[in-house]
Each structure stands twice: as C-alpha cells, then as structure tokens.
C-alpha cells in the first residue's frame, strides 16, 4: 500500500535510490571511518591503548581541550553578538558585515595560520616588539588559540543568524515596549528562541576546533608535550612509523567527533519533536 500513489515513484526506483544512497554513504563516508578504526586495532588493543596513554598523547589531548575551551566561548560571544546585531537592528553595512563574518570559510587554513605568523612572528609586524617584552604568541598557546579562533570563526554566527532573521523582530519589539533593556531582551526573548540552533553551532565549532590541522600546523612549532595538539600529534606518530598509534589517536579524535555528531543529532531529534508539538498535525 503506497502512501501517495499520485506522485510516488515505482518501488524499484525507490529501492534503487535508497540503495545508491546507502552505497555512497558506505563508500564515501563509512569506509574512511572504518579504516581509521581497523588500522588502529591492527596490532591489537595493547598497542592502541599504549599510544593513547603515552604522556605526549595525554598532553596533546589536554592542549587540544584547552584550546577548544578558550576558542568556543570567544566565538560564542562574538557570534551571538554579531547575529543579534545583524538580525535585530537596521544599520548601513549589514550585508558587508555578514559577508565579512563568512570570510574565514573561504580562506585556506594554511593562510589562516600564515597571517598570524606574518603578524606576530619574529619577522612580522609586531614580532620584535613582542620579543622585546618577552611575549610569545606564535609557537605557543596564544598562537594556537588565534589560529583556531580564525578557522572556527563563522560557525556560531552562521547557524544562529538565519534562524534569528527568520524569527523576525516582533517579539523583541514587544519586549522593548514592555520596558526591557537590551540585555534583558536578548537574554529572555532572543536567546531562548535560538538556544537549540546555538547549541548545534557550538558543537560544530567545537568539533572543528579540536580537529583543525592546517592552520594550527603553521603556528604550532611542534614542540612535543608543549605545543602539539592532537591532530598534529597524529601526524607526528604517522611520521614516526607508529601507524597503529597514529590511527589510535586518530580514532580517539574521530570518536570525539562522533560524540559531537551524536549530541547534535539527539538535539535535532529533540527540537524536531518540540517543533512538531507546536504546529500540531495539520494534515
């Protein structure tokens, strides 16, 4: 019994499409992931867990978490402010601002690292000044944070802005007529309306922050145990012919990414149902 015989495709077409989609998913998406885990466990659990328990790995994990812990809140605040300001206010240059916020997406990660070397490296604009004051930016935590900030810059704004625009301004205007201050309007009216999209943006931002390679590689200095993030550590292990170890650490990163995805999917399911309750079944 087909549900919509008027427009439904023949069963074999549907089966073919579903099969093709599953094949694409398998070959293009699942297989690379499977390789990571298969290679990680090729020499057994022992080798994999030993690679993870290595002090250098542990310090890389801590560094990566620290970088993400700084990056995400900064981009959260900035992204929210930008989205709010663009969606809820009129001012000349809104379009330009939107474009500028998206700019880092079209900049190569390598360039994202390069610009900070050009700025803060010893041969850069501020390098000599910084060294005279004994301040280290590139090849230290601040450089890693800056490069990661740049790369993950648009995530929050991008996920929240369209929703804010779609929701319009009437609720905020209503709040304003009721005497709410800017912060109160934002905190009590706008934020609750976008919180789920916001969380999803934060999760994406976090996933990218923990997984960034190109930009971070340029500014890291690759000092073992000090400025090696997890993705860089994967490269190091790989270059040391410790393939099982490299893939074990890679698998850990992949698991972090998968957990992020699971959280995001769960969130969407949750919000999907919420939205469904609101609109009811009109059909």
């Amino acid at each position, binding site marked *: 019994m087909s549900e919509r015989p008027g427009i439904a495709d023949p069963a074999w077409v549907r089966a073919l499409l579903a099969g093709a989609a599953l094949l694409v998913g398998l070959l293009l998406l699942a297989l690379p992931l499977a390789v990571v885990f298969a290679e990680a466990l090729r020499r057994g659990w022992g080798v994999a867990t030993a690679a993870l328990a290595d002090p250098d790995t542990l310090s890389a994990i801590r560094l990566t978490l620290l970088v993400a812990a700084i990056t995400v809140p900064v981009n959260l605040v900035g992204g929210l402010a930008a989205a709010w300001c663009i969606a809820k206010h009129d001012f000349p240059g809104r379009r330009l601002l939107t474009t500028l916020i998206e700019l880092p997406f079209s900049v190569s990660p390598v360039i994202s690292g390069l610009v900070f070397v050009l700025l803060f490296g010893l041969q850069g604009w501020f390098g000599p000044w910084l060294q005279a004051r004994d301040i280290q930016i*590139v090849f230290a935590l601040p450089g890693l944070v800056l490069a990661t900030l740049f790369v993950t810059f648009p995530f929050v704004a991008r996920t929240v802005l369209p929703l804010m625009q779609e929701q319009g301004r009437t609720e905020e205007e209503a709040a304003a007529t009721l005497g709410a201050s800017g912060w109160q309007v934002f905190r009590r009216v706008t934020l609750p309306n976008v919180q789920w999209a916001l969380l999803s943006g934060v999760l994406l931002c976090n996933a990218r922050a923990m997984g960034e390679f190109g930009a971070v590689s340029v500014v890291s200095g690759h000092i073992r145990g000090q400025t090696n993030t997890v993705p860089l550590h994967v490269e190091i292990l790989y*270059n040391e*012919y410790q393939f099982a170890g490299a893939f074990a650490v890679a698998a850990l990163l992949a698991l972090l990414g998968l957990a992020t995805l699971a959280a995001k999917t769960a969130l969407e399911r949750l919000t999907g149902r919420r939205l469904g309750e609101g609109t009811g079944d009109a059909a």
Partner: protein
Amino acid sequence: MPGSRLPPLPRRALLAAPALLAAAPARAQAARELLNVSYDPTRELYRDYNAGFAKAWQARTGQAVRVNTSHGGSGRQARSVIDGLAADVVTLALAYDVDAIAERGLIARDWITRLPHNSAPYTSTITFLVRQGNPKGIRDWGDLVKPGIGVITPNPKTSGGARWNYLAAWAWALRQPGGDDRAAEEFLGRLYRNVPVLDTGARGSTTSFVQRGQGDVLLAWENEAHLALQEFAGAKVEIVTPSLSILAEPSVAVVDRNAERRGTRDLAEAYLQGLYAPEGQALAAKHFYRPRDAALLAAHAALFPAMELVTVDGAFGGWGEAQRRHFADGGVFDQLYKPGR
C-alpha cells in the same frame, strides 16, 4: 603517573593571554628547560640522547633538566626558529638552514667553526632502498633513469634530505665519462621524470615507499634506510649502496640570541658537546648515523660500508652556492623539473 602533569606553558604565553591564568598549571618543578629544534629523522636518536643527557647533567650539576624537542622538515624548522620558535639549539639537516637562521642574526655567523668537524657531530650519506631481491636490478645511480623505474624521493624545495639526494645524483653524473653540468642536468631531469610521488619530507617518502608500495627504489638517508629495515620488519626491502655518494653533514648550533635571552647557554653548549663525547657518538652509531669517532666507525664497518663520498664544499662550493644555483626559485631544479605527463 604520566597523566598528572599539565603541559608546562611558557610564562610569556600567559602574559599574552591573561584570561588563561585560571587554567595555568602550577609550576611545581623547577627543572631547567632546553628546546632542541631538529628535523624529522632524528626523533629516535634524540629521544635516547635527551634521556642520557638529562641524567648526566643532573649527576654533574645537581640540576634537573627537561629537554623538549620539535621535529619537522628541516626548512620548516629553520623557518619556525626565524619566526620566533624559542629554540636553544638547532640540529638541522644541512648547514644552509642554520645559515638562514644566522642571517637573521639569531646565531653568530661563524657558528660552523665553533664545534669540531664543521659543527656536524655525526654524518650520513645517501643510499638506495629497493624491494627485496632487487627485482629491477638497481645497483647504481645510472639505473635510476631507466624507463619503468619508479624513484621515490622528497621534494628538494621542502626537504633537506631531498637536497642531499639531488646533489649526490648530480655529483655522480659529473663523474661519468663526458660528464659536465649539461649532462648532469639532463641526467637529473630524467631521474625526476621517474618520480611518481614527491613527498614534502623524508618520512613521507619512506611511508610512500614502504607502506604504500609506491615505486621501486627509495633514495634515503643511510640512517633512515636502516631504521626502515628495523621498523618495518616484514616490509621486504633491502639496502643497495651506490658506488658514489655525498657526505651529508647535519649541522648543530646554539641559537645564541635565544640562549642568551633564556639563560641556557651553558646547558645548550654542554648539550651539543655531549654529541661528540663517546656516549653521544655511540648513540649516533646505534641510530645508524656515521660517528665521527674513527674507531667507532671502523667497529661498525658492516653497517657503514666504505664508499666514495664527495662533500658539498668540494663539489658545489658550499651550501650557499648550491642553494642559490640549484634550489632557489627559478634555479636549476625548477628548470629541469618537468613532469613526464
């Protein structure tokens, strides 16, 4: 317990990001720190050497010392030091990279004379790694340009090791009957047409050759070739020693400006001098570097077969000249490198 310690952050980093103060680690240890910025194939050597050095230093002075290392392509590492990576010592693949740092005033210009043997405590050379049984019959440089031979070597623009490969091939071609610059250029052009994968670093090339099964012969540091035999026990590859090769002298130097600034000069100098001491030389040999110590070298004759070795200074007029002529943008390499397809 290895997990109990946060990564020690440079104090200066914290100054630049006051917000991080909450996350800052307690500076429990008062250990002195030394940063050795090195290149890819020395990871194993310095892992051993650092441990021994720290122990010896503590025995001698009572100070705890922690040696940090950074590895990568030699050129990239030099660039990082130039850009402000706070290296106390550099142990790079070639003198040219140290010269580049010296040019920016971070190292004294006369660095190469400050330590024995051109400031190169160990040497190496370039050999061939081929598939087991040498199915393609590769014996010497001339065999590399035969049709159908896949040669794996990194990009001389990005890899110090690759430059040694290039110069060794060039030197061999010059020695052939009728060998002149034109013939050498022609020879190298043909050689690079046989290269299917041009990795950015020596380690990438080894992986491509051994792990990914690319090509028939890998041009490798002698120490890397031996290490590959050891690491990839089941990889079915063997070493072929060419008739002539180049004397590779990996250079070491104290980065004067950083050592002064960080107050680590004594430590840095001791660290490099230790490489010339018997323990250091033995470690070098253990990791397949040719030690400078003649007796030690003779004792490992099976590992380090005698062959004719030319030097960069002798055959190319020094690194500055070689770099300018061959590897600079628009240099000989750029001209001869024309991919086959």
